[in-house]
């Protein structure tokens, strides 16, 4: 009841002409950003962070949240019209969205994508409002041992789930991110590590320049490297979906919303996995699975609801544990610190209203994507016609001036360039970026809590394995790593078939 009161208070506090204006332009910018292939949600949030650091905290965070929601939704446009996901989150949308567009139903597909995204975000918002205070309460029982495992869990689970077919590359990306976090002054004895005489490195490597490089400059290079795509439809049919159409897929939407939110809660896993998991579940449970991949509305609904629900889901651990659920949420955490908000277990004690303010901001963003998505379909088609040769140099200029604007030093531009080139190379070799980001943001948490825990236990390792939550984390991490080894996975599958032979025949 108190939560509901705080939620209404947050809505009232946020409702102003200025907030509506901020939400409107940032959602629109987010949709445009997401629509353009190569400009991702992480890039959008990172670049906008550099543009909003002089704004008031509330308006800046509202703009960033709206950018995040808008860009995840915007990715569906190019997925439907170009068969290229505007952001990785919309990869599953291409499977049914593009066939619908080829069948002359591009407008209808975009309408369904819009309502599905709105439903997904609302489901996620519900879980954010309901579970964030509870999780923050549980997190108050976390000590150094649990925080160490939590950080390791984040990197491992992100590495496992985001590397397509090769968890090893996911783990390597996570370790590289953690190594980046080891540069600079450490937090226990104030000892300076791995600076090699560069005084600029004493403060560590900034997350924003690294993110702008890995997601901005790397994407510019990627877009210029890849071949151009052609628009499938220059005009669109009816956009506004009938209520009956939305109602027909209500179970798919709700289920995908729950799956997406759960995937969002997992550290660093992200919107693309939310969409794929929802899509797979919808296909498995559909009465017409043969239509999936050929223009199934069920499939499109699942993919779009799933990826949008990840956004509020990713903010649950981000706000309560300071552990991001996705790459854009990682940048958002950095932005929160810039604006004087300290996410973590104490947030419900220190700023109980803040979580509900975020809920209200997400609600503003949902209204924004629904209104713009349904009303501005035709004008937004124009965005897809902007040639990449004219857009990418402007994006790169923002990649240069953005990190510079925060600290006013060229060193951060060099950091951006370094991460851009390395990020491009790693991406070409199928290394996922999410574990890298998570490693950078969780490195300090892991380092401090490992050494603090060992100091508290006087070198005794047993509290890391015997305290209940620590033990749970350890078991999950050990199982995750072991099951990523093919030989062990085959052995477990063999044991499973021995005990449940019927499962084998069913899966054939």
């Amino acid at each position, binding site marked *: 009841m108190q939560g509901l009161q705080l939620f209404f208070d947050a809505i009232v506090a946020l409702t102003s002409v200025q907030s509506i204006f901020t939400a409107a332009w940032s959602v629109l910018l987010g949709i445009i950003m997401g629509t353009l292939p190569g400009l991702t949600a992480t890039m959008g949030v990172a670049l906008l962070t550099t*543009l909003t650091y*002089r704004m008031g905290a509330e308006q800046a965070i509202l703009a960033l949240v709206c950018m995040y929601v808008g860009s995840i939704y915007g990715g569906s446009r190019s997925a439907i019209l170009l068969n290229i996901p505007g952001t990785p989150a919309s990869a599953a949308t291409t499977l049914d969205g593009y066939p619908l567009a080829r069948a002359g139903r591009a407008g209808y597909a975009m309408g369904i994508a819009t309502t599905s995204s709105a439903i997904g975000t609302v489901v996620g918002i519900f879980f954010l409002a309901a579970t964030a205070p509870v999780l923050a309460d549980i997190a108050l029982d976390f000590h150094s041992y649990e925080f160490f495992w939590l950080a390791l869990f984040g990197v491992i689970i992100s590495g496992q789930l985001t590397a397509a077919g090769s968890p*090893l*590359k996911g*783990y*390597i990306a996570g*370790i*590289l991110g*953690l*190594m980046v976090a*080891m540069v600079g002054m*450490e937090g*226990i*004895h104030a*000892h300076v*590590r*791995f600076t090699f005489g560069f005084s600029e490195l004493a403060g560590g490597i900034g997350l924003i320049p690294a993110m702008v490089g890995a997601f901005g*400059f790397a994407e*510019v*290079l990627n877009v*210029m*490297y*890849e*071949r151009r795509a052609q628009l499938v439809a220059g005009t669109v049919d009816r956009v506004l979906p009938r209520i009956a159409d939305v109602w027909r897929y209500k179970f798919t939407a709700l289920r995908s919303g729950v799956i997406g939110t759960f995937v969002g809660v997992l550290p660093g896993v992200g919107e693309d996995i939310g969409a794929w998991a929802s899509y797979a579940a919808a296909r498995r449970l559909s009465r017409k699975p043969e239509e999936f991949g050929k223009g199934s509305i069920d499939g499109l609904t699942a993919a779009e609801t799933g990826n949008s629900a990840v956004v509020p889901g990713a903010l649950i651990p981000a706000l309560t544990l300071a552990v991001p659920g996705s790459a854009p949420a990682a940048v958002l955490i950095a932005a929160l610190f810039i604006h004087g908000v300290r996410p973590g277990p104490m947030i419900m004690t220190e700023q109980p209203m803040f979580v509900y303010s975020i809920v209200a901001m997400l609600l503003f963003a949902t209204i924004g994507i629904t209104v713009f998505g349904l009303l501005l379909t035709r004008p937004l088609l124009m965005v897809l016609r902007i*040639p990449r*040769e*004219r857009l*990418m*140099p*402007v994006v*790169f*200029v*923002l990649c*240069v*001036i953005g990190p*510079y*604007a925060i600290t*006013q030093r*060229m060193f951060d*531009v*060099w950091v*951006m*360039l370094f991460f851009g*080139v390395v990020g491009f190379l790693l991406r*070409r*070799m*199928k290394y996922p970026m999410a574990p890298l980001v998570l490693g950078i943001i969780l490195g300090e948490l*892991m*380092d401090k809590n*490992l*050494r*603090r825990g*060992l*100091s508290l236990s*006087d*070198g005794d390792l047993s509290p890391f394995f015997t305290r209940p939550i620590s033990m749970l984390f350890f078991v999950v991490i050990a199982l995750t790593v072991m099951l990523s080894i093919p030989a062990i996975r085959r052995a477990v599958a063999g044991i499973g078939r021995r005990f449940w032979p019927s499962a084998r025949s069913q899966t054939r």
Partner: protein
Amino acid sequence: MTAPRAATADLVTGVILFALAVALIYGAWTMDRLEIRQIHPLTAPGLLPGLLGVALALCSALLIAGAVRARRRAAAAGAEGEAAGDGSPGNLAVATGLCLAYALVLVGWLPFWLATSLFVAAFIAVFEWPDAESGRARLVNLLWAAGIGLGAGLAISYAFSELFLVRLP
């Protein structure tokens, strides 16, 4: 990327990462243990970097082993290593060169608006040049490039210096 090329890339990356891991372990081992401050030995600053070095060494060794196996399989299957790539290396080289020239040379050497205008105009002109089929079309493209470059240079400079109050490089 074809399978043999991907395996070769993994092999090279694995070797580089292994070397990085060895360097990290060495750096962590030789890092000051702050005995003079009488800290607990297990809270030494090099602890986690050392553990990360060991983990990276293990992962890179597995990567190398996997890449060697993949190369053997590809050789046995007689897979071609010279298949056409999925992108344009030429475009990539030109884009990288222009971006690095802008960020490392032009910015700081010329006024920001001028550096930005030149970079944006050059980028557009270079990449749109092959698209034009006649001299007149090329001239039109060049004028567009110059216009967009100048507009972007002035607008971005104005936004950052006047609205965000940033002292431009």
